[in-house]
C-alpha cells in the first residue's frame, strides 16, 4: 500500500510536467483544430536557450540560486512564447485556408527543423548537456518517499500556471474571445474580434508554458538533449487526448492521470510496462470515452 501511495506521489510530480506541455497542445487544438507536432520542440528549444542564459549568468554549478532561475525562467517563457508566435505567423497563419492535414505536416516539418537546428548549432549539438543549476537534495518525507523542496516548488509553479490559464480562458474578456474563436471563427470576426491576434496570443501562452516546463526539467533532471522534445511531446499529446483535447482542465487532469498511471504501472508491473500501461489506458479511454475525460464540447463539433 505504501508503494502504491508513493507511486501516486511520483505520478503527480511527473504529471505536472506533462500537464504544462499538454496545455499548449490543447489550447492550440482548441482554437485551430491543429495538433501542433512542433510543440514538444518549443519545449526543447526553451531548454537549450535557458541552458545558455543560465550558463552565462551563473558562475559554477550551484544550488538554490532561486531568484536567478526565476527571472531566467520568465525571460525564457517570453522567448519561447515569442518563438511559438513566430512559428504561427510564418507558417500556420499563411496556411490557414489549407487543409488541416497540410498544417499538421508543416508542423512535423517545423519539428524537424527545430531538432536539427539545435543539433547543428554551435555550443549545443548532439550530446547531453549538463544543466548549470540543479535542485539540492534536501526536502521532506511523505510516507517512505523523499521529496525535495525543488519538486514541491515545481508542482506548485505548474499548478499556479495552469490555474492562471484556467482563469484567463474562463474569466477574462480575452478568454471569452478565445472561446468565441474556438466556437466559430467567422462569427467571432463578425463580432469584431481580432482573430489573428487571439490565435497569436494562444500560441504565445502555449509556448510560454512549454518554456516554463523546460526550465523546470533542466533544473530538476539536470540534463538536456536535442531529442527531449519528442518524448515529452508524445506524452503531453497523450495527456491532452486523455483529458479531452481542446479542454484546458482536461489537459491538466490528463497530465496527472498519465503521470500516475505510468508510475503505478512501474510500481506494479515494472518499469518496462510503464509505457504499455499508459498507452493501454489511452486506448481504453478512446474506446469507452473517445472525447477524453472532459472533452465533450469539442467532440460534438467534430
Amino acid at each position: 500500500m505504501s508503494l502504491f501511495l508513493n507511486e501516486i506521489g511520483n505520478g503527480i510530480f511527473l504529471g505536472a510536467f506533462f500537464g504544462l506541455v499538454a496545455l499548449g497542445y490543447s489550447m492550440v487544438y482548441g482554437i485551430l483544430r491543429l495538433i501542433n507536432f512542433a510543440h514538444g520542440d518549443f519545449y526543447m528549444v526553451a531548454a537549450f536557450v535557458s541552458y545558455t542564459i543560465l550558463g552565462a549568468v551563473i558562475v559554477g554549478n550551484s544550488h538554490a540560486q532561486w531568484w536567478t532561475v526565476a527571472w531566467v525562467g520568465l525571460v525564457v517563457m517570453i522567448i519561447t512564447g515569442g518563438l511559438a508566435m513566430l512559428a504561427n505567423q510564418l507558417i500556420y497563419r499563411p496556411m490557414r485556408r489549407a487543409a488541416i492535414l497540410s498544417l499538421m505536416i508543416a508542423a512535423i516539418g517545423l519539428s524537424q527543423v527545430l531538432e536539427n537546428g539545435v543539433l547543428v548549432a554551435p555550443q549545443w549539438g548532439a550530446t547531453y548537456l549538463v544543466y548549470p543549476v540543479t535542485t539540492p537534495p534536501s526536502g521532506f518525507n511523505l510516507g517512505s518517499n523523499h521529496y525535495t523542496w525543488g519538486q514541491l516548488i515545481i508542482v506548485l509553479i505548474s499548478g499556479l500556471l495552469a490555474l492562471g490559464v484556467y482563469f484567463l480562458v474562463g474569466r477574462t474578456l480575452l478568454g471569452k474571445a478565445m472561446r468565441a474563436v474556438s466556437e466559430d471563427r467567422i462569427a467571432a470576426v463578425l463580432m469584431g474580434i481580432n482573430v489573428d491576434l487571439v490565435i497569436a496570443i494562444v500560441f504565445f501562452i502555449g509556448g510560454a508554458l512549454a518554456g516554463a516546463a523546460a526550465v523546470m526539467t533542466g533544473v530538476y533532471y539536470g540534463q538536456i538533449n536535442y531529442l527531449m522534445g519528442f518524448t515529452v511531446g508524445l506524452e503531453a499529446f497523450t495527456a491532452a487526448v486523455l483529458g479531452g483535447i481542446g479542454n484546458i482542465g482536461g489537459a491538466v487532469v490528463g497530465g496527472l492521470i498519465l503521470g500516475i498511471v505510468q508510475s503505478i504501472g512501474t510500481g506494479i508491473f515494472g518499469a518496462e510496462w510503464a509505457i504499455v500501461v499508459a498507452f493501454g489506458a489511452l486506448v481504453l479511454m478512446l474506446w469507452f470515452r473517445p472525447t477524453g475525460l472532459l472533452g465533450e464540447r469539442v467532440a460534438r463539433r467534430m
Partner: protein
Amino acid sequence: MKKNLVKSRVLTAGLLVTGVLTIAAGVSAGGVASAAKKLSPYLVGVPMPMTGAEAEAGTQIYNAEAMAAQFLNHHGGVLGHQIKLLEQDDACDAGTAVNAANLLVSKGVQAYVGGYCSGATLPAEPIIARAGIPYVMPAANSPELTTGGYKNVFLIDPSGSGDGIEAAAFFKQQHITKVFVIDDQSSFGVAIAQSAASAIKKNGGTVVAGGIQSIPATSNDFSAVISQIKSAGATGIYWSGYFSQAAQFATQLNAAGVIGPHGTAKFVVADGSVDATYITGAGAAANGTYATIAALASGVGNVLGSNADKAFNRAYVKQFHAQPGPYSAFGYDAIMALALAAKHVKSIVPKRVIAGLHALHFVGLTGKISFAADGNRLGAVMDLLEVVNGKYTLAHPQP
C-alpha cells in the same frame, strides 16, 4: 623514393616484431614521407554514433581511429596502401546502422572498424559478413555480438558479460544479497543485465522486484523505479545502460536518500556508463558510486586520470583540443589490429586479413590483444572503479 618505402617497411616490421606499439614512438617518428601514393587506398568503413545521445563517445572513438590511420599513413600506410576512413553515422540506431553498413559496403570498403552501441552493431553483422570483410569493433561488447557464429567479428573491448560477473562479485564481497537490476532496453543493456542477474543468483543473492527491470532509453524520470527499490529493500543497485541515464539515475537515487550521504545502498554501473559526462551530469551524486570496465593498460585514456600513457592523451588533446574518452584507446587499437593483421599476412585482401586477425598477438594501448575463435578478446581482466571526489579511481572495497 624506393629507399623511403623500404625504410618505412623496416620501421613497421620492427614494431611488429617487438610487438610493442607505443604512440610515443609514432608521434616522435612522424613525418616520414609516404612513398606509396600509387597504390590504391585501403578503404575502411567506420560506423559510429555521430548524432544522438551517444554522439560524444562516437566522436571520441572516431578521432582516435583517425589518429591511428594518420600514424600508419605517415609510415607508408598498410603495405603501401594509404588508409582511408569512410565515416558514417549510425546514431546508435539499428535502422540507421543497417543503412550505413549497406552504403559503406556498396562504396567498396575492405574492412569495417566501428561500433559503440551493440544494438546498432548487431544488425550490421550479417551485412558485413556477407560482404566477407573483417569487422573490428572498438567498443561494442554485448555478449550477443559473438554468438552469431560469424568468423569475421573481432571485439577489442572484452565481452560485457565480464561486467555483470565483476559487479556480482563486488556485491557478494560487500555482503549485499538484495540487488535491484535494471537495464535500458538496449541490446547491450539487456545482455549485461542478464549476465549480472545470473551471476548474482549463482553467488547466492537475489534479484529483487521479481527479476530484471528495464526502463526505456528515452526516460529521464526514475522516481517510480526508486519507489520500487525502496519497497523491495534493495541494498545493491545495478544499472547496465548508458551514461546519460546513469547520471540522472544516480542524481535521483541520491536525492531520494537511497545512495550518497544519507543512503546505505551501493550503485554499480556497467562500462557503458563509464564516461566523464556521467560524473559532470551526476555531480556530487556520482561520488561513492562504482563502475566496472575492462582493465585498461595502466589507465589509458582519461578514465583514471592517471599519468599513464601521457603521450596518447597529449597527442589526442593537441589534435582535437578535447580529452579522449574511455574508449578512444580502443578505437586506436582497433585500427592498429587491422593494420598489423594485414601486415602479418602481407595482404589487404579481406579474407586474408580475417585470417591475420585470428592469428594476431600484439600489445596495444589497451594491453595484450588476441582473439578467441568466436572473436572475443582473450585474457580480459575487469577493473572495479569508484568515483572519488569527482574522479574515477581504482576501487579497493573493504567488505
